[in-house]
């Protein structure tokens, strides 16, 4: 019944105890945001978060936390509270996140595919690169119709149309002229899948060899049946998502819905802040930023927060070297548990 610990290269840690049941705690260093909730909740003081500032700045590969296998009893509290999925306790191969009875943080992020217009705003805004939008775009030729024809007998292969075509639809097969065959090109072709019938080639052709007509233009603003649907799928990586709410905020059609694990208040003590930016680097939710100075040498404005995106994990407070940030947690959203000890442990994080 010995507890063993393995620290892998890259900082991942596993702590294991094989007895009546096999308990295995896995720590994923890459997912850890150094918030310190595991350290706070651990009932046996087995976890210690290593100094954050230095680690963030130097991008070290060492473990962000230390687990004392002599103290760890593999109860799983750290695994249940971690909002970043960095810790996971498995009992006989099943994560306690799937075992009924264990309290689970209530947090989610979903994109309603019915509403989503595949604009990718969320994908761009997501601070954790957790969102992937795959969209199927229609072919250009399905959006525009027309005719184009090049009179190859008239064409002098000057290449002006090829150079000016905005859709790269024209291709000339150039040749080295010889005394037997004194031509500079043998053929010119239009890729009708690419052509958008803009008419530029026709207008620039010095010998009027191109005939082109757009069939859509005469309709002007009148809608004709040429608006194919843009379809797509969205995926939020549950491992990477931190439920910050950026996607929900930025979505132009309210298709994203986020439930945050904690509620609270983020308080900045401006008078203490020295502007070191550690908090900005640590924050997994892009809540904090320093506005850029307008002129060189100008002192930047004070630390700016947008609390809409804060999940009150406490990473900024933990990392601030001058105690200029206070994170107050008012409530934790979690599934009820019959265990008084677990309930007390969760409630103890409300401050």
């Amino acid at each position, binding site marked *: 019944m010995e507890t063993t610990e393995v620290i892998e290269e890259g900082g991942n840690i596993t702590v294991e105890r094989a007895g009546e049941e096999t308990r295995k705690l896995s720590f994923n260093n890459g997912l850890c945001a150094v918030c310190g909730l595991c350290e706070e909740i651990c*009932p046996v003081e087995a976890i210690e978060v290593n100094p954050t500032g230095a680690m963030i700045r130097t991008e070290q590969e060492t473990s962000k936390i230390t687990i004392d296998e002599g103290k760890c009893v593999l*109860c799983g509290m750290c695994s249940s509270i971690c909002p970043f999925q960095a810790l996971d306790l498995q009992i006989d191969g099943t994560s306690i996140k799937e075992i009924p009875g264990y309290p689970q943080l209530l947090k989610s992020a979903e994109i309603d595919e019915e509403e989503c217009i595949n604009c990718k705003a969320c994908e761009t805004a997501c601070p954790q690169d957790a969102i992937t939008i795959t969209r199927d775009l229609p072919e250009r030729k399905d959006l525009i119709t027309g005719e184009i024809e090049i009179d190859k007998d008239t064409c002098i292969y000057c290449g002006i149309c090829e150079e000016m075509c905005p859709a790269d639809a024209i291709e000339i097969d150039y040749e080295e002229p010889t005394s037997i065959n004194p031509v500079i090109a043998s053929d010119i072709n239009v890729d009708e899948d690419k052509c958008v019938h803009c008419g530029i080639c026709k207008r620039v052709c010095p010998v009027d060899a191109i005939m082109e007509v757009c069939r859509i233009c005469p309709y002007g603003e009148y809608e004709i049946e040429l608006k194919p649907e843009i379809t797509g799928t969205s995926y939020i990586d549950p491992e990477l998502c931190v439920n910050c709410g950026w996607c929900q905020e930025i979505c132009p059609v309210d298709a994203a819905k986020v439930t945050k694990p904690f509620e609270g208040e983020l308080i900045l003590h401006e008078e203490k802040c020295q502007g070191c930016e550690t908090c900005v680097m640590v924050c997994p939710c892009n809540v904090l930023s320093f506005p850029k100075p307008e002129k060189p040498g100008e002192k930047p404005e004070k630390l700016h927060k947008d609390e809409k995106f804060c999940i009150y994990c406490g990473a900024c407070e933990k990392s601030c070297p001058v105690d200029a940030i206070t994170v107050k947690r008012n409530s934790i959203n979690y599934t009820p548990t019959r265990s008084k000890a677990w309930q007390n442990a969760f409630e103890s994080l409300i401050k």
Partner: protein
Amino acid sequence: MPKHIISGLRYLAAVNLTKQGHTQKEVANRLGINRSTVSHYLNGRNLSIRSIEVAKVITELCPRDFLLLTYALLQDTNKTRTIIKACQRRKFKASVKSSCIGCGICIDSCLMKAIKLDELKAEIDSEWCCGCLICVEMCPTNSIEIEEVED
């Protein structure tokens, strides 16, 4: 010699189990020995009186020594818990406080297999508790209380 002491312990267990109303067949099954051996034991044959005397002393040791010594002799959890259960005269009442975090350390440490987890809380079957207090010592949150009760 260990073998003889084990026989002594089995003898005592067989006598107690018979007193409790178990048939020779049941006793044989529980102790993992054949029926004729049980019959020999109960008739006082094939066993030196010294072995029984030593075994008796062992059963009267403090519960932890009784348990650990028996386990050292038998090297088998199931056989150990059967002997202990049959020979331990003292009774204990175990309770788990609400401060239990369900880590399962007690379960792994209990040689009597008297503990299981129910919804993140350890539950101790007092019927099987031998009073060794190993779980009490191992519990990281001091959540286990064991007291001796009058039979």
